[in-house]
């Protein structure tokens, strides 16, 4: 049974009250949330320890300048937990990182929300966030799709958070403007918020209530995947899609799952001697420099695609506008399916490449 907190304020205001309570009463050592910066219309993530500074936070803004999961993974040594308000996909990426020993769950009180999608980076760059927000709020409260969210968000069926200590109800919550509803799932959350004096009831958080939205998202996903025709066009198709890749590796750098400080593909393994390149040049008559453009993409797919949670940061930062997130999600899902794996669903569900069963796939290798 979940404990439901009902606060007679707008959802954002109610959540800020909760965060203020936590910080003022030293229930947490800090709050990690999106907030307004000094420049009008600009936002970033912040770690806040002074409760007076909480008035600037905008925890439920549909923005993702960086994937918060990546940031939480950098916080290892903590005396007391930090309350973090993050999106379902960011939470899933954090779980994936925890599985890889890149983060500690005990360090956080994880508050997430039912997500209506994130706006692209350009919304912040072009200062359009404040003008878009009222429409966004209304659309999401009605359970509809806001047209300006990221394409990959429109294809996301995991908008209800897994593993959150608490979930703020936002999507389809028609009364979001005047009532804040927060579901506390874990004992940790219930204990920490014991002294928080608001209306508390017992109820079960109904995941099935979002089935209609889920179906809509799944349908869009199929459409989006179909648009990237690489399955049918083979190597030429790959070269068409990734031909304009400049090998900047920005996709990997912003990806929460790619945590390697020195990426294998940037290491000296791929620093060839002249003789090798000269041989290739002789064989083909022409050699692309720098080399290994497509190899890097396939290599990264083989390393992490099954853990791809579809946040879309890769597409946002690609200087060549390649739909990286769609390709990675598409391949990732197909691979994860083989092992019945869903990234970020369960921290005890181990990463498919790190484990094996003695009896599985018995046909492989025996023919």
């Amino acid at each position, binding site marked *: 049974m979940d404990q439901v907190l009902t606060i007679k304020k707008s959802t954002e205001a109610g959540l800020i009250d909760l965060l203020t309570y936590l910080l003022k009463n030293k229930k947490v050592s800090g709050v990690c949330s999106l907030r307004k910066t000094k420049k009008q219309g600009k936002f970033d993530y912040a770690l806040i320890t002074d409760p007076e500074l909480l008035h600037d936070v905008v925890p439920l803004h549909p923005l993702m300048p960086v994937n918060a999961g990546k940031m939480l993974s950098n916080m290892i040594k903590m005396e007391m937990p930090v309350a973090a308000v993050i999106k379902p996909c960011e939470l899933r990426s954090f779980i994936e990182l925890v599985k890889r020993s890149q983060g500690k769950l005990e360090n956080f009180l994880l508050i997430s929300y039912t997500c209506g999608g994130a706006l692209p980076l350009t919304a912040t760059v072009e200062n359009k966030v404040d003008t878009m927000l009222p429409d966004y709020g209304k659309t999401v409260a009605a359970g509809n799709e806001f047209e300006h969210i990221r394409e990959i968000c429109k294809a996301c069926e995991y908008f209800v958070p897994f593993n959150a200590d608490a979930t703020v109800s936002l999507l389809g919550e028609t009364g979001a403007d005047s009532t804040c509803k927060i579901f506390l799932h874990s004992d940790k959350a219930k204990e920490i918020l014991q002294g928080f004096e608001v209306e508390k009831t017992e109820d079960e958080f109904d995941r099935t209530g979002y089935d209609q939205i889920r179906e809509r998202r799944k349908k869009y996903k199929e459409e989006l995947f179909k648009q990237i025709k*690489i*399955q*049918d*066009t*083979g*190597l*030429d*198709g*790959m*070269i068409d899609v990734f*031909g304009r890749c400049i090998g900047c590796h920005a996709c990997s750098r912003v990806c929460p799952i790619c945590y390697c400080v020195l990426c*294998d593909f940037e290491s000296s393994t791929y620093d060839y001697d002249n003789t090798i390149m000269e041989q*290739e040049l002789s*064989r*083909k*008559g*022409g*050699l*692309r420099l720098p080399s290994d*453009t*497509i*190899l890097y993409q*396939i*290599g990264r*797919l*083989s390393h992490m*695609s*099954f853990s791809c949670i579809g946040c879309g940061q890769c597409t946002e930062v690609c200087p060549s506008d390649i739909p990286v997130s769609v390709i990675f999600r*598409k*391949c990732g899902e*197909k*691979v994860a399916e*083989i092992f019945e794996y869903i990234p970020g669903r369960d921290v005890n569900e181990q990463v*498919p*490449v790190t484990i*094996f*069963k*003695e009896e*599985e*796939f*018995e046909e*492989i*290798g*025996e*023919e």
Partner: protein
Amino acid sequence: MTSDFTPKIVSFLCKWCTYSGADLAGTSRMKYPPSILPIRVMCSSRVNPVFLVKSFFHGADGVLIGGCHPGDCHYQSGNYHTRRRFIILSKIFECLGLESERLKLAWISAAEGARFVKVTTEFTQKIKNMGENPAKRKIFI
């Protein structure tokens, strides 16, 4: 489409099993195709999936990984990992339309010289039917 070329099949063979099996085929005067370019590894799990991609992009018509039968790995669990990695890479090739049939994983023990001949002969014929690897000539790769 059958062609008359000799495919190049880069083969990563585990020392304890498949490589020894290949040796046995040789010493028993059994013929296997010259398309096989053997590379001896200590265990099939030494093979980084990216090796397969690299071979493929550098013009190998086929890539073969040879290891011990599951349960017989000299290092206990190496080949179980190989199996999973191979499946993941095959799936990715499939998703990207990259002829995943050019990649093969075969469990061949040190005593199975004949099996080595059979597998390599059949694989070579399959690659011949598929034709040359188109990646050989791609410059923008």
